């Protein structure tokens, strides 16, 4: 393993407006001298300023050519206003010692991002690889596509782990990769999904897997409601996602008939007895529960 070059990027003051910090990424730092890094542009509320106007940067005077050996630590009060952290990064590591704004890891293709606080919406939107870990909750559209785009334009590979709750539309339009939410998720998770896996370990609001055509959505807790356009498939004794295995029975549905989909939605049986009874009445289908 090569030696890591660590840069500490610290906010000088608490920003009052959103900051487009897409240039804070190992890819823009590589091969640049510290002076050049300080001159990188940042948008403060739409006005272009230099990195040094907003941040103190501490690190080696010359950044290595290899992206993978760069680590960036972002700290300071008000980091929740920083958007587009790690935009299009292909390697290296970013650690945010606090919250972060929208679009963290947008279009990233490699490397890793660790956020020690909360994240905004669109964490890992359209990402193609690498990993993102958020220690607290996050906003909407984790790993999603942008509004208006076709299904399948969301995340295509890589992994996102949220150790708290997530907002609505987790993995909207995703095509591949894995999203793990350790807490609960909002409405319409897996909307327009075309592949990949979403695991919600706790509860989930209305209609997971709406309009999905492929992939898996697994909910370990209570589901507020599922769509009538799902087919019931079978009861499975346990579900495994990577190294995580959930050893309890799940009801498996094929989703979503309204778009001719063949995706699968797994819903924990114990937590959702009444919902599955309701569904049984709705489709007049016999669901055997031992």
């Amino acid at each position, binding site marked *: 393993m090569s030696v890591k070059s660590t840069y500490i990027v610290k906010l000088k003051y608490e920003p009052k407006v959103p900051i487009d910090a897409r240039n804070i990424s190992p890819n823009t730092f590589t091969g640049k001298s510290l002076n050049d890094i300080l001159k990188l542009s940042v948008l403060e509320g*739409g006005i272009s300023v230099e990195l040094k106007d907003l941040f103190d940067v501490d690190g080696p005077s010359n950044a290595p050519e290899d992206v993978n050996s760069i680590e960036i630590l972002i700290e300071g009060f008000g980091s929740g206003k920083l958007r587009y952290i790690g935009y299009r990064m292909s390697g290296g590591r970013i650690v945010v010692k606090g919250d972060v704004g929208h679009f963290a890891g947008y279009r990233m293709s490699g490397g890793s991002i660790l956020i020690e606080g909360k994240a905004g919406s669109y964490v890992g939107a359209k990402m193609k690889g690498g990993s993102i870990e958020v220690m607290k909750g996050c906003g909407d559209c984790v790993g999603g596509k*942008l*509004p*208006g*785009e*076709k299904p399948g334009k969301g995340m295509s590979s890589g992994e996102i782990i949220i150790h708290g709750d997530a907002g609505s539309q987790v993995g909207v339009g995703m095509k591949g990769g894995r999203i793990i939410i350790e807490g609960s998720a909002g409405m319409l998770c897996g909307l327009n999904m075309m592949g990949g896996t979403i695991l919600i370990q706790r509860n989930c609001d209305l209609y997971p897997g709406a309009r999905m055509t492929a992939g898996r959505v697994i909910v370990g807790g209570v589901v507020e409601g599922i769509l009538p356009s799902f087919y019931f498939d079978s009861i499975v004794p346990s579900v495994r996602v990577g190294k995580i295995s959930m050893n309890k029975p799940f009801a498996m549905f094929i989703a979503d008939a309204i778009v001719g989909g063949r995706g699968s939605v797994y819903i924990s049986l114990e937590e959702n007895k009444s919902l599955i009874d309701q569904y049984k009445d709705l489709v007049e289908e016999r669901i055997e529960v031992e």
Partner: protein
Amino acid sequence: MVQILIKNGLVYDPLNSINGEVMDLGVKNGKIVDPSEVNLNEAVVVDASGKVVLPGGIDIHSHIAGPKVNVGRLIRPEDHYLTNIPHKPPFKRAETGLTVPNVFRIGYDYARMGYTFVAEPATPPLKTRHTHEELNAIPMIDKMAFVLVDSNWIVLDLIQESRRDMLTAYLGWLLYATKTYSLKIVDAGSDAAWMIKGEGLSLDDQVPGYNLTPKDIIKAIAESAQQLNLPHKVHVHCNRLGYPGNYSITIETMNLTKDLKIVSEGPALHITHVQFTGYKGDSWGSLESGGEDIANVLNVNPYVTLDMGQVIPGRPATTMTADAPFEFVLYHLTRWKWSTTDTEVETASGIVPYKYKKKSYVNTVQWAIGLEVVLLSKDLWRVFLTTDHPNGGPFIDYPVVMSWLMSKRAREDFMAKLNRKALKKCVITSIDREFTLYDIAIITRASPAKLLGLEKFKGHLGVGADADIAIYDIDPRTLDLSKDYEKVSKAFRRAYMTIKGGEIIVKDGEIVKQVYGRTLYVKPEIPKDMIVEIEKYLDSAFKKYYSISLRNFFIDERELRNPMEIPLKTSLR
């Protein structure tokens, strides 16, 4: 107001038969004056030597305002977030959107291309208040709107009852009430049929609930337009648009002029975006171009005009039309997203995003049709350049279309990227014609002004005309327009200078001043007793049909930012 002296420009002004003469132009008080009248002590002197000077461009068909445009913006966020240009103080507003731009970009981009006048070709009467709100917000250009009348129940009732004078009076009243300029027919009667039976109509099908065919509707409305003496008579989107084999319906519609009682001068029918209704063959697989056939009919019928509706392969488009049955079909071909609306009593509409592909067989035939019709037409005063923005492509691609018209080489280079099988069936490959700058000035300036009946003060550079002038940095004396077509389209995309109403608004392709143009509408003269009669009739018709009252329908002049009323002498007695 500034005075301007444009020196030594190479002037093309077809309405005054000026074909590339070096001359000076004077501008004073927003009008064109004799250069000797300009006071050189206060005037801005523009050196236009080696540059081409044209009247400001006029676009007769571009969907720039109204409810469907706004819905197009709403359902296409992806059209906007990657195309932003931030605002620039002190006056320049933010621009967004490619196929459905925001109001500011519409005005700015037209001005950058040297266009100063645009007509919005379809507004449902009930929603025209919204259309005017949007037109009011579009800077830089003069504008007007055409009102949709073909599936309007009141119109259908009056035609059915053969109350022709009442129909004429109603249409005249409607034009004034909605502050619009001309009548628009979209797929005559189809929206009425669509709401009742879920079907479109061919020319001789019966409109459900009425003893009428689309032919009857087109004829009745066209004759009322004659009686009203409208400057621009009727704007017709033909039936069965977008269906293979529809070119015969288009030709039949064009031939309807033979049965019309023609009382006032000028063309009687304008067939719009003819490309979409010029398909030969009986299925998508066997589609062929009907461009040549349509051009042949056009050449022998002096009462018909038409515009291209050119498609731009390789560019995204957003189709939006009052032809709801067609959009229903298109949505099921694309299966992505759409929006459809029923405007009570009057019309319907649909909006579907679409992308014309270079390698597609069908899209290649479509590309050929628009160009064939124009290149094969003998009378350039009756053809017009449009892309039916944003249906065939965005209006910012007009310069590319101009280069296709002006250069065989441009066409050949582009054809190399298109579908070969389709091109084998199109005559475009064998057409050698290349338009001159004079020809381009006709189809984008002079003939649109004439078609809209504005040739007295728009579309030319004679003394007394509005000072709407475009200067382009090309010199046909030193540049081979056919060979260097890319330079030509670049020059037309970013005008060297655009002058609107006597003010310099664009310099070197950049906006330097924001102005607001006028909105033109007609006021046909209707005898008093007929007004009383029609208002009495409408009062009960509104109670029967509409969810709003007659009083709230009428749009007041004060609701327009800069209204310009065109009074009309009619033959109603």
